[in-house]
């Protein structure tokens, strides 16, 4: 059947459109995740990208942040991405997962609450992890976290 024959390019796009939730999870850890812009054919050039302080981001459409940005963003500082502000998706400050994520950065719930009150803060509170994917997708450029690696057309691990 002719319509089921895909070119390599089609297969490539299909592979990134399919949501791949890898099973590898880290106990007591989180995977910092970054949003991606809408995939466009023109920006894929088969680039095997390297990034400063980053790794394994294969496509040009994923935002690039540094580790310093991650610390600063959850501390309530504004991170500029070109002329756009980076959004930060977060759970309620006392949610155990959020507390765990904060501990990785050396923060606690009070720090997060304080950061959220800053007038310039880009922290967006979501009620549960079910909303994380939506938050990242709808607020591009944005960062957040998952318990597992999530890599699809809208999200990829940051580091």
């Amino acid at each position: 059947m002719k319509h089921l024959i895909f070119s390599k390019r089609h297969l490539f796009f299909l592979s990134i459109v399919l949501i791949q939730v890898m099973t590898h999870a880290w106990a007591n850890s989180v995977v910092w995740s970054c949003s991606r812009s809408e995939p466009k054919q023109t920006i894929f050039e088969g680039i095997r990208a390297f990034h400063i302080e980053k790794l394994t981001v294969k496509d040009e459409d994923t935002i690039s942040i540094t580790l310093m940005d991650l610390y600063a963003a959850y501390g309530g500082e504004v991170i500029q991405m070109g002329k756009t502000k980076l959004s930060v998706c977060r759970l309620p400050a006392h949610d155990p997962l959020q507390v765990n994520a904060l501990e990785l950065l050396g923060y606690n719930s009070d720090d997060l609450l304080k950061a959220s009150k800053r007038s310039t803060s880009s922290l967006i509170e979501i009620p549960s992890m079910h909303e994380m994917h939506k938050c990242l997708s709808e607020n591009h450029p944005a960062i957040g976290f998952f318990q597992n690696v999530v890599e699809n057309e809208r999200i990829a691990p940051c580091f």
Partner: protein
Amino acid sequence: MVQTHLNPLPSTTERVVHLCRLLLVWGIYNAASAHAAPWHLESAGPNTPPASIETAAMTPGSHAITVAVIDSGVIAEHPALKGVLLPGFDMVAGSRNSRGERSPNFAPDPKDATCRQKLVSASFRTHGTEVASLIAGNGYDNMWGVNPRAQILPVRIFNTCGMLLEDMIDAIRWSSGLPVAGVPNNPHPAKIINISITGGVLSCRTDLQKTIDAARRAGTFVVAAAGNNFQRPLAEPANCEGVISVGALSAENKIENYSALDARTTIYTTGGGPTLRVSQPWANNKLRVATTELNMVGNEQLVVADKGIGTSFAAPVVSGFLSLWLSYNPQLKPQDWESQLDFFVRQVPRLEKCADCNPRGLVASDLTIRRSK
């Protein structure tokens, strides 16, 4: 009635004594502020951070050592790098270079530069400048590098569009004095190459490994950041044979949780991290770097700030240390480092997640530097 008590006028002797006291206080203050080393370099003492490399009081040897910084470019105007930069090169290939072609202009992309849809945070722009300052900062505003007499060779391979492996390979070749097609020869071959970049694949590709082997044969030390992948294995170029891979420690000599975790990591040193809940002056746990900040009206200012976090900043501490060691004897080779590494290490607590890791932290003293001469 208001009583007033008038002090008698001081005698000339008292005035002289007072003036001397003022001068003494001023002198002490000035000396302290002029030579205050960043915490990660502090000499051994009761209040020294446990992870300090203890080089602050060391005088570099008579040889100026060239260290290539393969990175996002360097802001040559930064006062903390005045007098330490050599003519570098922009190795970003033409198709991805907003300036159109490779050239000797090693400055980073302009502020707010974009690459089609790609969004990159502003901190990438200053990355190379920050790295260079940790190696050879000249002391401006207390921005001391490990070896202020080292010479920095800036080589740009990363811009808003990201980076290509081919550019990294050409940059390593050029930095170590090997020929690169279409690029003028490097008149200042580097003894040390610092690559605070990671993100290739989990096994070192053949072309990259061959390039590193060639650089080593030319006598060049290749130092690479282990990566900030939160305790996952090393990626390129840190996982290539012969590369000195550098993980990050807190000021308290503990492996930072963002650092890659891999038994192949050569050495650990201060990389900064979360603020420590201690009362010591190094509680901030960030590395001092030459960088930029925006003023009230959004203009970029060249500043020095305690904000460095990441293995990107641990690697130049090792590169700076190597340059200090080589400044006494520039004939030393990468193999000498490997055979004498035990002189330069202290034990670092292991992490349960890596049972076969034997983490070692960088430390020096006059004694260890001289024993290795």
